[in-house]
């Protein structure tokens, strides 16, 4: 056996729970995340499940996994490779073994390694026994049988009993990381409060797992991960889609508007629609439209009518919305358009992540039709950027595109709940004076935004639409110079928003040989890579992540200009680097593009940086 890489006290650990789609791995992982949060760890999680609704049981295609990285330091990614792999059947082992670090630990339900299951997983012999796993630390846990034993007098059916074996596994892992059981038990009691027998069954299974781990002393000593130094506050684990939904709710509440969401279901954006459909208690007005075009058009109707209005989708839907986004641009209406990107083009790889809708967000409309483009960079900051998107849309009376992606949508990270005053107020640009002094395209001088007057505002009746408008009055006109002027105003209006955006901050070297640039969801991997290099003594590398894409922060050129080379890393074929090149052709760019439907690994970024430095 190889050296066990687990130590009694560790700064970071990556755990991966894996089993058949029916084995409840997502719930198990979720509960372990909760417990890690309670323990004060920072963490990031990511699920990984089959594209099929129900893949064939026991096969490699049917494996469902959940990966979490926890740490006593800041954690930005779910981890490239795994320290502890929990496998509920042979297929899970086969599917995931390549991810395990040499010297890593495997916790396997040995009861599941039956000849039938081995065959389904395409094993010729039992890997638990044939030496395949020599370089790892294998803990063979009789999870199925011990769970059945523990539950036998509850009067449950066999299937229900074996289904609890995931809680057994959780028990083993909780013990392994020295976790108190109480908050996990609380969680179970809340979740199953309608079915006391399930509460009992789950509790017993967890305890059976703990007892097994304790009594067999397989771990020698359990592991402690000290709490991370996170800012004071109340936390919860949140995924990117819920965070976006909640950001919109918070924005609506802040500015005293009703929230209208008009969307059409699509992977991986649907959960925003689901969450807000369930948020009638918060007053959310949710419309599941007949298609994406109806969705955005209804959103435009809601925006004109004075609600905080949003539409959410993914790439194919975003394409369908192109025409109507143009209407929102020329009509100058506040509208949040969320694109949770997936891997394209066309239907592409619908369950995989990518950042390839950036070009479309920037340029995907006929005519000169600029919009604000923002990208979130972690599941929890999806809340913040969703709030920001709403704030900018309303205050500047403009459509805003918020880019997220599959990685952010399905991953989770701990989110510090905003407290009173944490969120900047949203000012609704209403014209306060005499309607006679107002015109539909009268602008506020500082930011050139129109006022947002809506049905119900007495005396402000007006027409708006897709034809070019006379400056100020908004009347229809074909005047040549007016069109040029309005085109320039629409551009300038977006550009001026830059002055209100936070400036970019560089981590690592503030100038020098190489600036590593990312945007949106790649923050975690790139940040971790650069930090590790800095810790290794590399002094010549800086790092900056863009969340504001259009307009760019005011100090962008200053920052790019401080470095000899700029390495732009993105999950597409080079869209952001192309944008930077066209905006700042004077700098020297290199690009690193991964187009595999997968997030970056920290190791890939590190290798690329080292490579670039040596060029």
């Amino acid at each position: 056996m190889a050296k066990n890489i687990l130590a009694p006290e560790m700064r970071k650990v990556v755990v991966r729970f894996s089993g058949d789609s029916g084995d409840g791995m997502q719930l198990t992982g979720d509960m372990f995340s909760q417990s890690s949060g309670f323990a004060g760890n920072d963490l990031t999680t990511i699920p990984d499940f089959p594209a099929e609704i129900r893949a064939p049981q026991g096969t490699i295609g049917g494996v469902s996994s959940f990966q979490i990285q926890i740490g006593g330091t800041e954690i930005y990614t779910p981890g490239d490779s795994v320290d502890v792999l929990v496998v509920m059947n042979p297929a899970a082992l086969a599917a995931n073994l390549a991810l395990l670090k040499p010297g890593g630990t495997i916790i396997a339900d040995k009861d599941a390694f039956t000849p039938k299951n081995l065959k389904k997983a395409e094993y010729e012999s039992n890997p638990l026994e044939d030496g395949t796993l020599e370089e790892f630390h294998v803990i063979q846990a009789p999870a199925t049988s011990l769970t059945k034993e523990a539950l036998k007098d509850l009067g449950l059916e066999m299937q229900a009993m074996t289904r609890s074996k995931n809680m057994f596994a959780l028990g083993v892992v909780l013990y392994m990381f020295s976790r108190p059981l109480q908050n996990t038990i609380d969680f179970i009691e809340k979740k199953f409060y309608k079915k006391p027998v399930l509460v009992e069954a789950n509790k017993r299974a967890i305890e059976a797992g703990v007892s097994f781990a304790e009594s067999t002393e397989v771990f020698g000593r359990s592991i402690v991960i000290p709490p991370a130094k996170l800012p004071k506050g109340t936390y919860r684990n949140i995924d990117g889609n819920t965070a976006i939904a909640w950001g919109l709710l918070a924005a609506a509440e802040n500015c005293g508007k009703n929230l209208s969401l008009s969307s059409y279901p699509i992977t991986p954006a649907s959960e925003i629609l689901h969450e807000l459909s369930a948020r009638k208690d918060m007053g959310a007005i949710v419309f599941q439209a007949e298609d994406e075009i109806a969705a955005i058009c209804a959103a435009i109707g809601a925006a004109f009518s004075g609600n905080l209005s949003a539409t959410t989708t993914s790439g194919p839907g975003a394409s369908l919305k192109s025409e109507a986004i143009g209407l929102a641009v020329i009509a100058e209406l506040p509208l949040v358009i969320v694109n949770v990107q997936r891997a394209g083009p066309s239907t592409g790889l619908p369950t995989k992540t990518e950042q390839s809708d950036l070009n479309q967000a920037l340029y995907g409309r006929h005519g000169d039709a600029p919009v604000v483009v923002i990208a979130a960079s972690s599941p929890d900051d999806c809340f913040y950027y969703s709030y920001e998107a709403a704030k900018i849309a309303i205050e500047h009376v403009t459509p805003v595109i918020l880019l997220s992606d599959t990685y952010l949508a399905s991953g989770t990270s701990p989110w510090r709940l905003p407290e009173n005053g944490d969120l900047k107020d949203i000012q609704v640009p209403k014209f306060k004076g005499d309607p006679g002094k107002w015109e539909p395209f009268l602008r506020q001088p500082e930011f050139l935004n129109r006022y947002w007057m809506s049905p119900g505002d007495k005396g402000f009746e007006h027409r708006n639409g897709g034809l070019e408008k006379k400056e100020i009055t908004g009347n229809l006109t074909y005047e040549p110079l007016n069109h040029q002027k309005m085109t320039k105003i629409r551009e300038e209006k977006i550009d001026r928003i830059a002055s209100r955006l936070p400036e970019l901050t560089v981590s690592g070297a503030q100038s020098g040989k190489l600036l590593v640039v990312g945007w949106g969801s790649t923050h975690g991997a790139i940040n971790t890579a650069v930090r590790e290099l800095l810790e290794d003594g590399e002094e010549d590398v800086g790092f900056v992540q863009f969340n504001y894409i259009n307009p760019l922060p005011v100090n962008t050129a200053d920052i790019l200009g401080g470095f000899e080379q700029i390495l732009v890393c993105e999950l597409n074929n080079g869209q952001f680097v192309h944008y930077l090149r066209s905006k700042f052709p004077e700098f020297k760019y290199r690009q690193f593009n991964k187009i595999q439907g997968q997030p970056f690994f920290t190791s890939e970024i590190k290798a690329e940086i080292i490579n670039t430095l040596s060029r």
Partner: protein
Amino acid sequence: MQTDAKENKTDLTKKDFVSDQTVRWCPGCGDYMILAIMQKAFARMDHAKEEHLSVSGIGCSSRITYYLDTYGVHSIHGRAIAVATGAKLANPGLNVWVFTGDGDCMAIGGNHFIHACRRNADLNIIIFNNKIYGMTKGQSSPTTPVGLKTKTAPEGSHENPFNIGEVAIGSGATFFARVPDNNPKLLEDIMMQAYHHKGTSVIEVLQNCVIFTDGIHEQITGRDTKDDNQLVLEHGKPMIFGKDQNYGIKLNGMRLEKSALKNGTDASLVHDEGEKDPAMHLALTRMQLPGHPVAMGVIRKVEAQNYSEKVHEAIAFERETSTFKGVNDLFRSGNTWEIG
């Protein structure tokens, strides 16, 4: 339903709904009448001026938004109904009217149309049916009759046209009315009935385009032929028509037949706009020349679940019964932990 013009809650007059924009339709276009009557009807409705919303798509007909002094959205081709649905849901207090053409509504906008009929949110939709694309200069529309020569059917159209009423009712419409552009009284009455109807109201106006389909409705709407060729329906009244009121409608199996009336009105069917089973209403919308008169007036007006109302009832219920006072309660529900 006819009420006196000033029995409503506002003191607005037709003039209040005339915008300052020059009307730019061809002289003689049927759209002028629809505009004038709409302005009149708005003044008769109970909503305050700032609570009316006009939404249109793109087409000659859709230009009407600019001429109505209400809040208005001149949206994009085919999408007026979608915009209006969003607006109505956003603010259920608004009086929302959609103005659309046969191309705008039945070609590119067809999907939104059938879904609006199905959902039955409280929208009022007026379709200006000139059986042609006017604004783009004369291509076939989905209501263009077979054989008509158009720019895209130089040897005559090969496509079977939609019957708007059948599509609407087949998709679940609870209110359907038809009216020629030269019957202002009926038009105004229908507008008021649509206004009072809770749910999606569909009004098909047979509108004359003097440029591209001049006279296409002539047989139905012409001065000399209209009485014989139109059956103007009234709820609870027998279906009688003809210059001398000498024809009625009879049922034969499941079909409607024109019948000469000999002795009194008793021989004719009586119109029941409120009959939920749509068979009769569908049969009425299907009647066509020759052989049958064309049905005008409110053909169908029934009650059914209204989407905008239901959604807001559900929201009101959830808000009342929820323990969350605001987002902070929501955020703090479930599994949270403290640090620090």
